[in-house]
C-alpha cells in the first residue's frame, strides 16, 4: 500500500501504435463532446449534457489498460472509457438524441447503455449502485476461475454513498478481481471535496477496506496507464480488489446548464494549463514517438468519423410511442 505521484516512464508494453491509438481516443472523446455541445445548443440533445473536459486522460488511460474480456462500468464522465471499450460515436449521438436506433431504443439517455460483449456495463443515475453490481460481475470471474477483471469508476462525491461502501467492502472481503477507480475531480456538482469528506487523501478510504490503494496524477496519461495496468494485473493474478485514485479536475460545470459560479477563474486557468491531452501530445512528441503529421492524420480521421456519425444519427427517427411498452419482463 504505497502511494505514487510521480509520472512514470512510458510503460514498456506500449508500442508506438498503442500510443497513437491512445491519442485517437483522447481526441475522439473531446471532439465528440464538443460536437455534442453544438447539438445541445441547437436543441437536438433531449436532456442534459455532461462533459468530461480535462478528465479524458484518466478515462482513456485506465480503460486502455484493461484486456479484452475485462468489463468496466463507466460514470457520466467516462465517455472516453466507453469509446476505448468499443462504444461507437454514432451510438452515443443516438442516445443523446433519443433515437429509435440508439442502443436503448430511446429508453435511456446519454451514455447509459451497455455492451457486455465489448466489455462495458451502463450505469444508472443512483450514485454508488454500480459498485456492488460490478462486485457481482467480478465474483463471477472468480467463481469461474476466469482471468478477467472488473473496473468500476466512482467520483469523490459518490464515495459518500452507502452503496459504494457496501460494494467495495464486499469485493474486498471476497478478494474479487475488481479495480475501483476513484475520480477525484475536485467537485461533486457544486460541492468541493472537503465538504464531502474530512480525509485528506481519498486513497485512504481504500486502505480502510484493507485493499491496496494508490494515488496518481490523473492528467498524466502514461502514469495513469502504468499504474492502472499494474493494479489490473494484480487483481487478475488473485491479489484481490485494488483502488486507484486519479487526481484530476472537472473543467466544465456539472452539466452544460451549470454556471460554475463556485469554481474560481484562477482554479480553472490552472487546470487548463494542466490539460491531459496537451501534456500527452508534448510527451509523445518530445520523446519522438509521434510526429505532428501522425496526429493531424488522426485528427482528420476523427473529424470525418464524427461528421459521418452526426449525419447518420440526426437522420434517424425518434421511436414510435407504442414501442415504450414491452420488455419489462422476459
Amino acid at each position, binding site marked *: 500500500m504505497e502511494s505514487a505521484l510521480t509520472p512514470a516512464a512510458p510503460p514498456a508494453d506500449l508500442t508506438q501504435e498503442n500510443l497513437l491509438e491512445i491519442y485517437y481516443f483522447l481526441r475522439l472523446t473531446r471532439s465528440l463532446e464538443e460536437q455534442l455541445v453544438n447539438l445541445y445548443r441547437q436543441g437536438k440533445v433531449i436532456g442534459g449534457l455532461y462533459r468530461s473536459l480535462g478528465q479524458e486522460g484518466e478515462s482513456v488511460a485506465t480503460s486502455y489498460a484493461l484486456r479484452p474480456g475485462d468489463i468496466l462500468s463507466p460514470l457520466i464522465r467516462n465517455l472516453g472509457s466507453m469509446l476505448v471499450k468499443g462504444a461507437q460515436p454514432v451510438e452515443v449521438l443516438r442516445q443523446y438524441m433519443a*433515437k429509435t436506433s440508439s442502443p436503448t431504443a430511446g429508453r435511456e439517455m446519454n451514455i447509459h447503455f451497455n455492451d457486455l460483449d465489448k466489455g462495458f456495463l451502463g450505469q444508472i443515475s443512483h450514485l454508488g449502485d454500480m459498485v456492488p453490481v460490478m462486485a457481482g460481475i467480478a465474483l463471477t470471474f472468480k467463481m469461474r476461475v476466469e482471468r478477467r477483471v472488473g473496473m468500476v469508476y466512482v467520483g469523490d462525491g459518490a464515495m459518500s454513498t452507502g452503496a459504494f461502501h457496501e460494494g467495495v467492502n464486499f469485493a474486498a472481503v471476497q478478494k474479487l478481481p475488481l479495480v475501483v477507480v476513484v475520480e477525484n475531480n475536485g467537485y461533486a456538482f457544486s460541492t468541493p471535496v472537503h465538504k464531502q469528506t474530512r480525509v485528506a487523501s481519498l486513497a485512504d478510504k481504500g486502505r480502510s477496506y484493507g485493499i491496496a490503494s494508490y494515488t496518481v496524477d490523473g492528467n498524466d496519461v502514461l502514469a495513469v496507464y502504468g499504474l492502472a495496468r499494474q493494479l489490473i494485473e494484480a487483481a487478475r493474478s488473485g491479489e484481490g480488489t485494488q483502488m486507484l485514485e486519479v487526481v484530476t479536475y472537472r473543467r466544465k460545470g456539472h452539466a452544460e446548464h451549470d454556471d460554475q*459560479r463556485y469554481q474560481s477563474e484562477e482554479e480553472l486557468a490552472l487546470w487548463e494549463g494542466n490539460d491531459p491531452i496537451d501534456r500527452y501530445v508534448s510527451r509523445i512528441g518530445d520523446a519522438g514517438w509521434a510526429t505532428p503529421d501522425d496526429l493531424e492524420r488522426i485528427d482528420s480521421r476523427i473529424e470525418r468519423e464524427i461528421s459521418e456519425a452526426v449525419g447518420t444519427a440526426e437522420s434517424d427517427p425518434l421511436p414510435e410511442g407504442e414501442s415504450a411498452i414491452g420488455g419489462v419482463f422476459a
Partner: protein
Amino acid sequence: MAEVTYLEALRQGLWEELERDENVFMLGEDIGEYGGAFKVTEGFLEKFGAGRIIDTPISEAAIVGAAAGAAHMGMRPIAEMQFIDFISCAYDMLTNYVATARYRAGLATPIVVRGPSGGYVRGGPFHSQMPEAAFFHTPGLKLVCPATARDAKGLIKSAVRDDDPVIYFEHKFLYRRIKEDLPDDEEILTPIGKARVAREGSDLTIITWSAMVWKCLDAAEELASSDGASVEVLDLRSLIPMDDAAILGSVRKTNRVLIVHEDTRTGGIAGEITSRINEGAFEWLDAPVRRVTAHDTPIPYAPTLEDYVLPGADDVVEAARLLLAY
C-alpha cells in the same frame, strides 16, 4: 398581489418558515452556495447562513437520519432530495426509523423531506419518478403533493409546522409553468388533509393530484365544450391523510368516478381510493371506478416514449367518455 411561479411560491414558503422559527433549518446536496439544482434555495445561504443551510455529502440516508435525530431534539429540519428519485436510498431510514418513531417509542419526528418529482420533462428513468406509492404504504408518513402555486406555498408552510414527518412531492414540470397571483399581505397556510374542488361538476368526479390536476382541468374543459358534460375535479392535495369525506361526498353527488394519477398503474394509489369508494359509497356508483395512469414501465427518455407512457389530457377525456356513457 404579485404573480409568482410554483417554484417561487415554494421558495417563499420555505423562506418565511426559516424566518419565523429559528428551529427550522435545511440540509441537502448543493443547496447552499449553488442554491439547489433547481434554484429553490437561491439566496438562502446568504440570508440564513451556513449553520442553517447545510450542504451535505451525497448521502440520502444520512440526510434523512440526521434530520430525524435533530427533529427529536426539537428542531424542524427540511431535507432536500436533489431529485425525489434518490429518496429510494433513504427508504429504510424513512420507513423503518422515521415512520415508526412515534408509534414504537413516542418520539416526535417533525421533518419535511422534499424534492422535485414527476415526469414530462424528458428526464429518463431516474429523474422522472413520482414515488408517492412507495411511501403511501407505510403508516406514519404524511404525503403532500401541491398542484398550484398557492398550495405549493401553503402546504410547505403547513408541512414545516406539522408534528409528523411529511414527504413533500413538488412537481418539477410545474416549477416554472404555473403562475398565480398570491397576496403579499396574508399568510398562506393550506391545511394538510383537505382536498380542494378544482372545478365543480355533477356528472362525473375526477380524483387527482399534483401535475395531473392541470391535465384533468383541460380534459374537463374539453368535455364541457364538446360533450356538454359537467365534470368535477377534486385535487386531493395530500395522500396521507386522505380526505375521504371529500371523495365520498363527490362520488355520492356524481355517481361516476375516474381516478387519474401520473404513477404506474399496478400498485398506484388509485387502487386504495377504489377500495375506499367501494367500502364507502358502493351503492351510489352508477359505473365502475376507473383509472387513468401511467403504463407499467419505467419512464423512458425519448419524448415520444415518455408521452406514450405518461397519461395525457386525451387519455382522461377518453376514459371519462366511457364512464359518462356507461
